[in-house]
């Protein structure tokens, strides 16, 4: 594969894979928590949380990128605090690309998981409680296994979305080859220079392959897992 792609193109693909992997992995626990809260808990501000989660889906990605810069930039309060206490820097680093991708993919992930949670019969959870399981244990032993197909679908969709994220990423972490130049940023950059069309085309093909692969995989895994859970 590295023979077919130039080192620069390969860098972009590898970076995007890394960014998407971490974005998906880190957002999975909060994604499950938020989906559970939206599906099952009744609390003031539920609609607000719902709106907030879905905001990146509707907002222009550039605006999301700007908000990230204004929050997590090196001179912004949260960014400064994180750098001083934990030594984590987001601005103009691949970690920032992962943050941007994770936030942009979050609504897709939460949606898939929330639908799965809403499909779980709450009466099964009640039954588990009468058998002596405290709430967190009910979640771990009943709810989570039953929503596993939804969680997997949500994760794969989020991964594909994170692979393709462009607007917020380029605004937040710019387009530094080898550091923050993800696959979409690289396509954009190659199209800006004369003779870059061939590289751009190769990267587009990679994108199509990843996106299609992710969708097929999510379907396949979801049906397999659902069948396994139902015991057939």
């Amino acid at each position, binding site marked *: 594969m590295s023979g077919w792609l130039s080192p620069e193109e390969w860098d972009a693909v590898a970076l995007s894979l890394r960014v998407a992997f971490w974005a998906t992995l880190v957002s999975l626990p909060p994604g499950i928590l938020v989906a559970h809260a939206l599906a099952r808990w009744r609390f003031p501000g539920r609609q607000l949380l719902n709106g907030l989660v879905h905001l990146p889906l509707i907002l222009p990605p550039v605006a999301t990128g700007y908000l990230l810069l204004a929050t997590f930039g090196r001179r912004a309060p949260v960014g400064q605090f994180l750098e001083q206490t934990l030594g984590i820097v987001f601005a103009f680093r691949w970690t920032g690309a992962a943050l941007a991708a994770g936030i942009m993919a979050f609504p897709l992930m939460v949606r898939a998981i929330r639908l799965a949670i809403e499909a779980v019969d709450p009466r099964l959870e009640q*039954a588990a409680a*009468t*058998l002596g399981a405290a709430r967190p244990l009910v979640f771990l032993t009943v709810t989570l296994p039953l929503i596993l197909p939804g969680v997997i679908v949500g994760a794969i969709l989020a991964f594909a979305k994170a692979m393709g994220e462009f607007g917020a990423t380029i605004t937040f972490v710019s387009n530094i080859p080898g550091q923050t130049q993800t696959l979409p940023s690289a396509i954009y950059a190659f199209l800006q220079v004369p003779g870059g069309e061939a590289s751009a085309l190769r990267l587009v093909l990679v994108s199509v392959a990843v996106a299609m692969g992710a969708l097929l995989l999510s379907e396949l895994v979801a049906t397999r897992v659902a069948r396994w859970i139902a015991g057939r």
Partner: protein
Amino acid sequence: MTLSVRLAHDFPGFALDVAFDAPPGVTVLFGRSGSGKTTVANAVAGLLRPRAGRVAVNGAVLLDTEAGRFLPPHRRRVGYVFQQDRLFPHLSVARNLKYGRLFARGTPEDFGHVVALLGIGDLLRRRTADLSGGERQRVAIGRALLSAPQLLLMDEPLAALDDPRKAEILPYLERLRDETRVPLIYVSHSVPEVARLATTVVMLDAGRVQRAGPAAEILSDIGAIPTLGVADAGAVLTGRVARQHDDGLTEIAVSGGVLYLPMVDAPPGAQIRIRIEARDVILSRARPEGLSALNILPATVAAVREGEGPGVMVQLRAGQDLLLARITRRSARALGIGEGVDCFGIVKTVAVTRQNVGLIGD
């Protein structure tokens, strides 16, 4: 008292206000749908938080709103068998059964014993999706039993099953009642089930306790008939198997004499409960002769209640037991049936079907 329940709760258009105490054994909450049975069960399990109330089992207080005590469901040790079995679809039968043991406080029943009691040994490796309705419900009962409950709740566990499946499970419930020491609250609106299982009956109507007491007393109580339904009315007698006869009959000793029933599969000395439906009892002022019916019990009329239709319900005392007989108003007049009158209660042997006979363990 083993069980003490006091509950008050308001729903839109429905107010629940019940109080009852019960000794060990099976306490049946009886009433039509909408009378508040399931609400009581849910409040006892902790799935509903009532406005006011107190629930105690063997001295353990599960709920006491005055003292500000509300144990969450997972700390109540109340096993709940629901109308629909609610088995976990992602777990095998064995793992469903063992689920409650993970969290059990107290000593759970022996796994092998429960499996044998419910006859589910062959199902353990199966997935729940492959089970029949009767099998599923038995697994659900086992699962509740194995969570080491101090009280078992069953909310119409047979309602979703057809008659053969009901007949399949009832003996297991009887064994459960007689072989485990866990008190049981059984929600039902089926008179035959009540007659087979109940130690105590609590009749609910529109959110209130209408009558409560020992099963034999309530079921033969002439005043309870409107709630039980005239068609289902019948008294419950206890007796002992005296002898098995060669011609397929079993001789049963009851307090008022002897009954011959179609073959009861139990050894001499075994205690049984017999439900005799009111419409199957014939009255006669004189001891009849040349009659095919084998069971003729001398009795005294204890009470008479006229219904709205052509029928009259007559309560008879035969020895220590009470019998109910439903006859026409015309016959009652012709025979001069009234309180204190001596007569004979006649029951055809074949009218007492197998579903109406239950074993009582010691």
